[in-house]
């Protein structure tokens, strides 16, 4: 037969890599479009009289709403297949990960299905952003004691 190392080399030779350049470019393009869209709606909200310090909260909420709707309609994953990090990195990816879990687990009930499993994908993001926020806060606190 074949030993572990020589087989792993064989697997490496035969396994095609992700198309890095194409994926990076489409992530840049789709991510850019989402950000541009965010800027446009921010300006619309400003025109509608939303206070400038509140406007980005409104933009975030709007993007979350649109992503949630698109996930529910089954369109998001088809776009994300091409957009990759372009839809994953902005708040759109976070919204999709929560809503897709909710839809997926609805059949198992609202408490043990949706309730228990809604953050299975987003959970690590929430946990580690809280932890890093806490650490950042500590650093900031101690720095301000001396500066």
């Amino acid at each position, binding site marked *: 037969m074949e030993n572990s190392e020589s087989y792993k080399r064989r697997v490496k030779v035969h*396994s095609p890599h992700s198309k890095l350049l194409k994926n990076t470019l489409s992530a840049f393009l789709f991510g850019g479009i989402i950000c541009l869209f965010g800027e446009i709606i921010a300006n619309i909200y400003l025109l509608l009289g939303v206070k400038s310090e509140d406007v980005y909260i409104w933009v975030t909420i709007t993007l979350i709403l649109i992503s949630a709707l698109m996930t529910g309609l089954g369109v998001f994953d088809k776009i994300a297949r091409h957009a990759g990090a372009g839809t994953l990195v902005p708040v759109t990816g976070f919204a*999709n990960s929560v809503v897709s879990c909710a839809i997926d687990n609805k059949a198992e009930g609202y408490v043990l299905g949706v309730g228990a499993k809604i953050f299975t994908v987003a959970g690590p993001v929430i946990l580690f952003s809280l932890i890093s926020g806490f650490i950042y806060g500590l650093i900031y606190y101690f720095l301000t004691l001396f500066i």
Partner: protein
Amino acid sequence: MQKITYLDKPVYIESFSAVGGLEESRGPLGDKFDLIDEKDLFGMKTWERAEGEMSRLALNIALNKNKLSPDDLDILVAGDLQNQCVASSGGLFTFGIPFLGLYGACSTCTEGLLVLTAMLTASKNYSRGASVTSSHNCAAERQFRTPIEYGAQRTPTSQWTATAAGAFILGKEKSDIKITSFMPGRVIDGYVKDQSNMGSAMALAAYDSIAAYFSENDPSRFDLILTGDLGSVGSSILEEMLCEKLGENGRTISSLHKDAGLLLYDLKNQDMHAGGSGCGCSASVLSSLILPKVKSGEYKRIALLSTGALMSTGSVGQGDHILGVAPLIVIEGEDL
């Protein structure tokens, strides 16, 4: 070592059927399926129940094709990809046939045919039985990967779990397709930890079984050597190893080799990456494409090795290697 059983009295495949979903209908075998549901739900409310319903429909069609009733079957062996094989038991219990559940991951189609052949051969109590195998893309995605609507890019080595089921009715009465020998495979370490590269993890198991079987059989007597779901990556690894290690025999086997995962879909236009997978993949390809060709005489003798990647979300999460297994059966045409 693996033991090859050559049957003095063959077991006959009396009837077979294939049921599939949307992507399967869009593939090159789409019009060869007995039943397609483009909604993938088969009238059910959840993906898990849809898989069970697929099994039920597949067996029903196979029974109807030969004008048989469930009472004509002495034993039912079935398996799927869901935890505790609930699709098979849930979908098939209403037939009231004694039942054995099987789990061989994607190797279940061959495993079922092998087990059923052995039972029919070993005991006069069993004169006719059925083997049913299913997998459902959405049920498998939910269990092994991410939510259905989750937006992510898949790696080029990943494979698409087929939404498909196949049912086969085997008996001792003479008909035009027969099973003449079988060989269970060994569980082989695939050395791969990445569950997006299962073709590579299973290629060694396929190689192990092929090397064992063809150490005492002449591959040139075969028209086709069909693996289950190695996909494009696993197939090219297998063919390279055969040519390197088994010399002239290996080159013959390699030239006769096809993979069900590469036959079920149009890889380029359906965005299927490395090809199809799942228990339903080899079952539906065998039923829709291969057995009709054996029946018509185009293939006189074929070897079928469905390949199973043995792992769970737990074992992959804990960094274990994915293990592979590849049972083998030989199917021949019978001159009636």
